[in-house]
Protein backbone atom coordinates (compact mmCIF):
# COMPACT_ATOMS: atom_id res chain seq x y z
CA UNK A 1 0.00 0.00 0.00
CA UNK A 2 1.27 3.45 -0.78
CA UNK A 3 0.65 6.41 1.39
CA UNK A 4 -1.22 8.75 -0.94
CA UNK A 5 0.37 11.93 0.29
CA UNK A 6 4.00 10.83 0.48
CA UNK A 7 4.02 7.94 -2.01
CA UNK A 8 6.01 5.95 0.53
CA UNK A 9 5.74 2.19 0.81
CA UNK A 10 4.26 0.90 4.03
CA UNK A 11 6.03 -1.28 6.58
CA UNK A 12 4.00 -3.06 9.24
CA UNK A 13 6.08 -3.76 12.34
CA UNK A 14 4.64 -6.44 14.63
CA UNK A 15 6.60 -6.55 17.87
CA UNK A 16 5.71 -6.35 21.55
CA UNK A 17 9.06 -4.94 22.62
CA UNK A 18 8.93 -1.11 22.73
CA UNK A 19 12.66 -0.51 22.26
CA UNK A 20 12.79 -2.68 19.14
CA UNK A 21 9.79 -0.86 17.73
CA UNK A 22 11.33 2.52 18.49
CA UNK A 23 14.64 1.60 16.86
CA UNK A 24 13.09 0.07 13.75
CA UNK A 25 10.70 2.98 13.35
CA UNK A 26 13.57 5.45 13.63
CA UNK A 27 15.66 3.55 11.10
CA UNK A 28 12.83 3.35 8.56
CA UNK A 29 10.62 6.40 9.04
CA UNK A 30 12.42 8.60 6.50
CA UNK A 31 11.86 6.16 3.67
CA UNK A 32 8.68 4.35 4.64
CA UNK A 33 5.29 4.83 6.23
CA UNK A 34 5.24 2.83 9.43
CA UNK A 35 2.30 0.98 10.96
CA UNK A 36 2.76 -0.60 14.39
CA UNK A 37 1.10 -3.55 16.07
CA UNK A 38 2.26 -4.78 19.47
CA UNK A 39 0.59 -8.20 19.31
CA UNK A 40 -0.45 -10.81 16.81
CA UNK A 41 -4.11 -10.03 17.36
CA UNK A 42 -3.63 -6.33 16.79
CA UNK A 43 -1.65 -7.12 13.64
CA UNK A 44 -4.49 -9.24 12.26
CA UNK A 45 -6.90 -6.44 13.06
CA UNK A 46 -4.66 -3.96 11.20
CA UNK A 47 -4.28 -6.12 8.11
CA UNK A 48 -8.00 -6.72 7.94
CA UNK A 49 -8.37 -3.15 6.66
CA UNK A 50 -4.84 -2.24 5.50
CA UNK A 51 -2.48 -3.90 3.07
CA UNK A 52 1.15 -3.15 3.91
CA UNK A 53 3.94 -3.56 1.36
CA UNK A 54 6.17 -5.51 3.72
CA UNK A 55 5.86 -6.95 7.23
CA UNK A 56 8.46 -7.20 9.98
CA UNK A 57 7.29 -9.83 12.44
CA UNK A 58 8.71 -10.68 15.84
CA UNK A 59 8.78 -14.41 16.43
CA UNK A 60 8.48 -14.60 20.18
CA UNK A 61 5.41 -12.82 21.49
CA UNK A 62 2.93 -13.71 24.22
CA UNK A 63 -0.49 -15.21 23.33
CA UNK A 64 0.01 -15.50 19.60
CA UNK A 65 3.58 -16.08 18.49
CA UNK A 66 5.13 -15.00 15.20
CA UNK A 67 4.65 -18.39 13.54
CA UNK A 68 0.90 -18.32 14.19
CA UNK A 69 0.64 -14.75 12.96
CA UNK A 70 2.62 -15.71 9.86
CA UNK A 71 0.26 -18.60 9.08
CA UNK A 72 -2.76 -16.33 9.54
CA UNK A 73 -1.22 -13.70 7.23
CA UNK A 74 -0.55 -16.25 4.52
CA UNK A 75 -4.17 -17.41 4.68
CA UNK A 76 -5.29 -13.97 3.50
CA UNK A 77 -5.34 -13.98 -0.29
CA UNK A 78 -4.29 -10.33 -0.69
CA UNK A 79 -1.31 -10.87 1.61
CA UNK A 80 -0.12 -14.26 0.44
CA UNK A 81 2.77 -12.82 -1.55
CA UNK A 82 3.72 -9.86 0.65
CA UNK A 83 7.27 -10.22 1.97
CA UNK A 84 7.43 -11.12 5.64
CA UNK A 85 10.75 -10.71 7.43
CA UNK A 86 11.02 -12.31 10.86
CA UNK A 87 12.67 -10.38 13.65
CA UNK A 88 15.05 -12.41 15.77
CA UNK A 89 18.23 -12.17 17.78
CA UNK A 90 21.33 -12.94 15.74
CA UNK A 91 22.06 -16.16 17.65
CA UNK A 92 18.63 -17.79 17.15
CA UNK A 93 19.63 -20.27 14.41
CA UNK A 94 16.90 -22.70 15.44
CA UNK A 95 14.18 -20.06 15.12
CA UNK A 96 15.61 -18.96 11.80
CA UNK A 97 15.56 -22.46 10.37
CA UNK A 98 11.97 -22.98 11.48
CA UNK A 99 10.86 -19.67 9.99
CA UNK A 100 12.61 -20.22 6.70
CA UNK A 101 11.11 -23.69 6.46
CA UNK A 102 7.67 -22.13 6.90
CA UNK A 103 8.35 -19.82 3.97
CA UNK A 104 9.52 -16.61 5.62
CA UNK A 105 11.27 -14.38 3.12
CA UNK A 106 14.16 -13.40 5.36
CA UNK A 107 15.23 -12.20 8.80
CA UNK A 108 16.19 -8.94 10.40
CA UNK A 109 18.45 -9.51 13.33
CA UNK A 110 18.79 -7.81 16.67
CA UNK A 111 20.83 -5.70 17.12
CA UNK A 112 19.25 -3.81 14.26
CA UNK A 113 21.92 -2.33 12.04
CA UNK A 114 20.27 0.55 10.21
CA UNK A 115 21.97 0.05 6.84
CA UNK A 116 21.31 -3.69 6.81
CA UNK A 117 17.69 -3.36 7.84
CA UNK A 118 17.05 -0.75 5.14
CA UNK A 119 18.88 -2.77 2.47
CA UNK A 120 17.00 -5.94 3.30
CA UNK A 121 13.67 -4.16 3.13
CA UNK A 122 14.61 -2.39 -0.09
CA UNK A 123 15.71 -5.65 -1.71
CA UNK A 124 12.64 -7.56 -0.64
CA UNK A 125 10.35 -4.80 -1.86
CA UNK A 126 12.17 -4.87 -5.20
CA UNK A 127 11.84 -8.69 -5.38
CA UNK A 128 8.20 -8.38 -4.48
CA UNK A 129 7.60 -5.78 -7.18
CA UNK A 130 9.41 -7.93 -9.77
CA UNK A 131 7.43 -10.93 -8.67
CA UNK A 132 4.22 -8.96 -8.96
CA UNK A 133 5.12 -7.90 -12.49
CA UNK A 134 6.00 -11.46 -13.43
CA UNK A 135 2.74 -12.74 -11.99
CA UNK A 136 0.80 -10.08 -13.87
CA UNK A 137 2.62 -10.93 -17.10
CA UNK A 138 2.04 -14.61 -16.47
CA UNK A 139 -1.69 -13.97 -15.94
CA UNK A 140 -1.81 -11.94 -19.16
CA UNK A 141 -0.11 -14.76 -21.04
CA UNK A 142 -2.50 -17.24 -19.47
CA UNK A 143 -5.46 -15.15 -20.64
CA UNK A 144 -3.95 -14.86 -24.10
CA UNK A 145 -3.43 -18.60 -24.16
CA UNK A 146 -7.07 -19.21 -23.27
CA UNK A 147 -8.12 -16.81 -26.04
CA UNK A 148 -5.85 -18.60 -28.51
CA UNK A 149 -7.28 -21.96 -27.51
CA UNK A 150 -10.80 -20.57 -28.01
CA UNK A 151 -9.81 -19.19 -31.38
CA UNK A 152 -8.26 -22.50 -32.44
CA UNK A 153 -11.42 -24.31 -31.33
CA UNK A 154 -13.55 -21.84 -33.32
CA UNK A 155 -11.37 -22.31 -36.38
CA UNK A 156 -11.60 -26.07 -36.06
CA UNK A 157 -15.38 -25.82 -35.93
CA UNK A 158 -15.40 -23.56 -38.99
CA UNK A 159 -12.98 -25.86 -40.81
CA UNK A 160 -15.17 -28.85 -40.02
CA UNK A 161 -18.29 -27.03 -41.20
CA UNK A 162 -16.47 -26.00 -44.37
CA UNK A 163 -15.46 -29.58 -45.08
CA UNK A 164 -19.00 -30.79 -44.53
CA UNK A 165 -20.26 -28.09 -46.88
CA UNK A 166 -17.78 -29.09 -49.55
CA UNK A 167 -18.86 -32.72 -49.28
CA UNK A 168 -22.51 -31.70 -49.58
CA UNK A 169 -21.76 -29.44 -52.51
CA UNK A 170 -19.84 -32.15 -54.31
CA UNK A 171 -22.71 -34.57 -53.77
CA UNK A 172 -25.18 -32.00 -55.10
CA UNK A 173 -22.98 -31.26 -58.08
CA UNK A 174 -22.75 -34.95 -58.84
CA UNK A 175 -26.54 -35.03 -59.16
CA UNK A 176 -26.68 -32.07 -61.52
CA UNK A 177 -26.79 -33.08 -65.17
CA UNK A 178 -26.11 -30.41 -67.63
CA UNK A 179 -26.14 -30.17 -71.39
CA UNK A 180 -23.58 -27.97 -72.96
CA UNK A 181 -21.54 -27.51 -76.11
CA UNK A 182 -22.65 -28.38 -79.65
CA UNK A 183 -25.29 -31.12 -79.88
CA UNK A 184 -25.68 -32.79 -83.28
CA UNK A 185 -29.35 -32.54 -84.26
CA UNK A 186 -31.15 -33.50 -87.46
CA UNK A 187 -32.39 -30.31 -89.06
CA UNK A 188 -35.54 -32.11 -90.36
CA UNK A 189 -36.74 -34.62 -87.78
CA UNK A 190 -34.90 -32.99 -84.85
CA UNK A 191 -33.46 -36.30 -83.64
CA UNK A 192 -30.23 -35.97 -81.70
CA UNK A 193 -27.15 -38.09 -82.14
CA UNK A 194 -25.67 -39.38 -78.89
CA UNK A 195 -22.07 -40.40 -78.02
CA UNK A 196 -22.70 -43.88 -79.40
CA UNK A 197 -23.78 -42.47 -82.79
CA UNK A 198 -27.41 -43.44 -82.15
CA UNK A 199 -30.06 -40.97 -83.24
CA UNK A 200 -32.57 -40.40 -80.43
CA UNK A 201 -35.85 -38.62 -80.26
CA UNK A 202 -35.39 -35.14 -78.80
CA UNK A 203 -37.58 -35.96 -75.80
CA UNK A 204 -35.73 -39.18 -75.16
CA UNK A 205 -32.37 -37.50 -75.44
CA UNK A 206 -33.21 -34.69 -73.00
CA UNK A 207 -34.73 -37.19 -70.58
CA UNK A 208 -31.55 -39.27 -70.64
CA UNK A 209 -29.18 -36.38 -70.23
CA UNK A 210 -30.93 -34.08 -67.72
CA UNK A 211 -33.12 -34.24 -64.71
CA UNK A 212 -35.93 -32.70 -66.72
CA UNK A 213 -39.18 -34.56 -67.16
CA UNK A 214 -41.93 -33.99 -69.71
CA UNK A 215 -45.61 -33.53 -69.00
CA UNK A 216 -46.85 -34.50 -72.47
CA UNK A 217 -49.45 -31.76 -72.79
CA UNK A 218 -50.63 -30.10 -76.02
CA UNK A 219 -50.02 -26.59 -77.25
CA UNK A 220 -52.92 -24.49 -78.68
CA UNK A 221 -51.65 -24.65 -82.29
CA UNK A 222 -51.25 -28.40 -82.16
CA UNK A 223 -54.56 -28.70 -80.45
CA UNK A 224 -56.27 -26.87 -83.35
CA UNK A 225 -54.46 -28.94 -85.93
CA UNK A 226 -55.00 -32.21 -84.13
CA UNK A 227 -58.69 -31.57 -83.45
CA UNK A 228 -59.18 -30.78 -87.15
CA UNK A 229 -57.56 -34.04 -88.14
CA UNK A 230 -59.65 -35.96 -85.65
CA UNK A 231 -62.78 -34.15 -86.89
CA UNK A 232 -62.04 -34.95 -90.53
CA UNK A 233 -61.47 -38.54 -89.63
CA UNK A 234 -64.98 -38.73 -88.26
Amino acid at each position, binding site marked *: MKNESSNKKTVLIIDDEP*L*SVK*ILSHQLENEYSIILADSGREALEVISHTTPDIILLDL*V*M*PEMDGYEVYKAIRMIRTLDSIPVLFITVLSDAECEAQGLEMGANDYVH*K*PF*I*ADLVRLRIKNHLAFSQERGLLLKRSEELEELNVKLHDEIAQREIIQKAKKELIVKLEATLAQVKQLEGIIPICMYCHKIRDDKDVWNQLVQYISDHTEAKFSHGICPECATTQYEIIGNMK
Partner: protein
Amino acid sequence: LRALESACKTQYKRGKITVILEKNLHPGDQTDAPMLFDKVELLDHFDGDEEFAQSILDDALTEIPKEVEGLIALCGGEDLQAIRLLAHTIKGMAANLCTNALRDIALKIETAAKNDDLESARGLLPKLEQTTRMTLGEIRKLT
Protein backbone atom coordinates in the same frame (compact mmCIF):
# COMPACT_ATOMS: atom_id res chain seq x y z
CA LEU B 1 42.69 3.29 14.40
CA ARG B 2 40.62 1.64 11.69
CA ALA B 3 37.41 2.41 13.59
CA LEU B 4 38.55 6.01 13.99
CA GLU B 5 39.38 6.33 10.29
CA SER B 6 36.00 4.90 9.42
CA ALA B 7 34.26 7.31 11.78
CA CYS B 8 36.11 10.29 10.26
CA LYS B 9 35.37 9.17 6.70
CA THR B 10 31.70 8.68 7.34
CA GLN B 11 31.44 12.01 9.17
CA TYR B 12 30.15 10.55 12.40
CA LYS B 13 29.27 12.91 15.13
CA ARG B 14 31.85 14.05 17.63
CA GLY B 15 30.49 11.81 20.39
CA LYS B 16 31.32 8.66 18.52
CA ILE B 17 34.87 9.75 17.81
CA THR B 18 35.29 10.57 21.49
CA VAL B 19 34.10 7.10 22.45
CA ILE B 20 36.44 5.45 19.96
CA LEU B 21 39.32 7.47 21.31
CA GLU B 22 38.46 6.60 24.91
CA LYS B 23 38.16 2.94 24.06
CA ASN B 24 41.49 2.84 22.30
CA LEU B 25 43.36 5.04 24.74
CA HIS B 26 42.56 2.63 27.58
CA PRO B 27 43.03 -0.83 26.04
CA GLY B 28 43.81 -2.29 29.48
CA ASP B 29 40.11 -2.01 30.37
CA GLN B 30 39.16 -4.55 27.70
CA THR B 31 38.88 -8.28 28.46
CA ASP B 32 37.70 -11.37 26.53
CA ALA B 33 34.39 -11.29 28.40
CA PRO B 34 31.48 -9.75 26.50
CA MET B 35 31.36 -5.99 26.90
CA LEU B 36 28.86 -4.61 29.35
CA PHE B 37 28.00 -1.86 26.93
CA ASP B 38 29.50 -1.01 23.54
CA LYS B 39 28.54 2.54 22.69
CA VAL B 40 30.65 2.58 19.52
CA GLU B 41 28.72 -0.35 18.16
CA LEU B 42 25.43 1.20 19.25
CA LEU B 43 26.20 4.45 17.42
CA ASP B 44 27.29 2.44 14.41
CA HIS B 45 23.89 0.76 14.30
CA PHE B 46 22.14 4.14 14.44
CA ASP B 47 24.17 5.79 11.66
CA GLY B 48 26.08 7.77 14.31
CA ASP B 49 22.91 9.53 15.44
CA GLU B 50 23.96 10.37 18.99
CA GLU B 51 20.73 12.12 19.87
CA PHE B 52 18.70 9.04 19.05
CA ALA B 53 21.18 6.77 20.83
CA GLN B 54 20.80 8.96 23.89
CA SER B 55 17.03 8.67 23.75
CA ILE B 56 17.26 4.87 23.49
CA LEU B 57 19.65 4.72 26.42
CA ASP B 58 17.29 6.84 28.50
CA ASP B 59 14.55 4.34 27.74
CA ALA B 60 16.91 1.49 28.57
CA LEU B 61 17.54 2.90 32.05
CA THR B 62 13.82 2.47 32.72
CA GLU B 63 13.07 -0.64 30.68
CA ILE B 64 15.96 -2.90 31.72
CA PRO B 65 15.36 -2.73 35.50
CA LYS B 66 11.61 -3.17 34.97
CA GLU B 67 12.01 -6.30 32.82
CA VAL B 68 14.77 -7.80 34.99
CA GLU B 69 12.70 -7.33 38.13
CA GLY B 70 9.80 -8.97 36.34
CA LEU B 71 11.97 -11.94 35.41
CA ILE B 72 13.25 -12.36 38.96
CA ALA B 73 9.67 -12.33 40.21
CA LEU B 74 8.63 -14.92 37.61
CA CYS B 75 11.49 -17.21 38.65
CA GLY B 76 9.88 -17.31 42.10
CA GLY B 77 7.03 -19.20 40.46
CA GLU B 78 6.99 -22.11 38.05
CA ASP B 79 5.69 -20.66 34.81
CA LEU B 80 8.57 -21.67 32.57
CA GLN B 81 6.88 -20.38 29.43
CA ALA B 82 6.54 -16.90 30.95
CA ILE B 83 10.17 -17.03 32.12
CA ARG B 84 11.30 -18.02 28.63
CA LEU B 85 9.31 -15.19 27.02
CA LEU B 86 10.59 -12.50 29.36
CA ALA B 87 14.19 -13.75 29.17
CA HIS B 88 13.82 -13.65 25.39
CA THR B 89 12.55 -10.07 25.55
CA ILE B 90 15.49 -9.03 27.74
CA LYS B 91 17.88 -10.80 25.39
CA GLY B 92 16.49 -8.93 22.38
CA MET B 93 16.50 -5.62 24.18
CA ALA B 94 20.07 -6.15 25.38
CA ALA B 95 21.18 -7.13 21.86
CA ASN B 96 19.70 -3.93 20.47
CA LEU B 97 21.41 -1.87 23.16
CA CYS B 98 24.77 -3.58 22.55
CA THR B 99 24.81 -4.61 26.22
CA ASN B 100 26.32 -7.94 25.34
CA ALA B 101 26.99 -9.37 28.82
CA LEU B 102 23.34 -8.86 29.73
CA ARG B 103 22.28 -10.41 26.41
CA ASP B 104 24.36 -13.52 27.14
CA ILE B 105 23.01 -14.09 30.62
CA ALA B 106 19.43 -13.57 29.40
CA LEU B 107 20.08 -16.15 26.66
CA LYS B 108 21.26 -18.63 29.30
CA ILE B 109 18.09 -18.15 31.34
CA GLU B 110 15.93 -18.44 28.22
CA THR B 111 17.67 -21.69 27.26
CA ALA B 112 17.27 -23.10 30.78
CA ALA B 113 13.55 -22.29 30.71
CA LYS B 114 13.20 -23.82 27.27
CA ASN B 115 14.78 -27.01 28.64
CA ASP B 116 12.34 -27.01 31.58
CA ASP B 117 15.28 -26.44 33.92
CA LEU B 118 13.88 -24.04 36.47
CA GLU B 119 16.70 -24.62 38.95
CA SER B 120 19.35 -23.52 36.44
CA ALA B 121 17.28 -20.48 35.53
CA ARG B 122 17.02 -19.56 39.21
CA GLY B 123 20.73 -20.22 39.69
CA LEU B 124 21.53 -17.62 37.05
CA LEU B 125 19.59 -14.84 38.75
CA PRO B 126 22.41 -13.50 40.96
CA LYS B 127 24.58 -13.18 37.85
CA LEU B 128 21.70 -11.47 36.06
CA GLU B 129 21.27 -8.96 38.88
CA GLN B 130 24.97 -8.22 39.04
CA THR B 131 25.28 -7.84 35.26
CA THR B 132 22.24 -5.60 35.16
CA ARG B 133 23.64 -3.37 37.88
CA MET B 134 26.99 -3.07 36.15
CA THR B 135 25.42 -2.51 32.73
CA LEU B 136 23.20 0.26 34.00
CA GLY B 137 26.24 1.79 35.68
CA GLU B 138 28.12 1.80 32.37
CA ILE B 139 25.18 3.32 30.55
CA ARG B 140 24.78 6.04 33.17
CA LYS B 141 28.46 6.90 32.84
CA LEU B 142 28.03 7.55 29.14
CA THR B 143 24.67 9.25 29.12
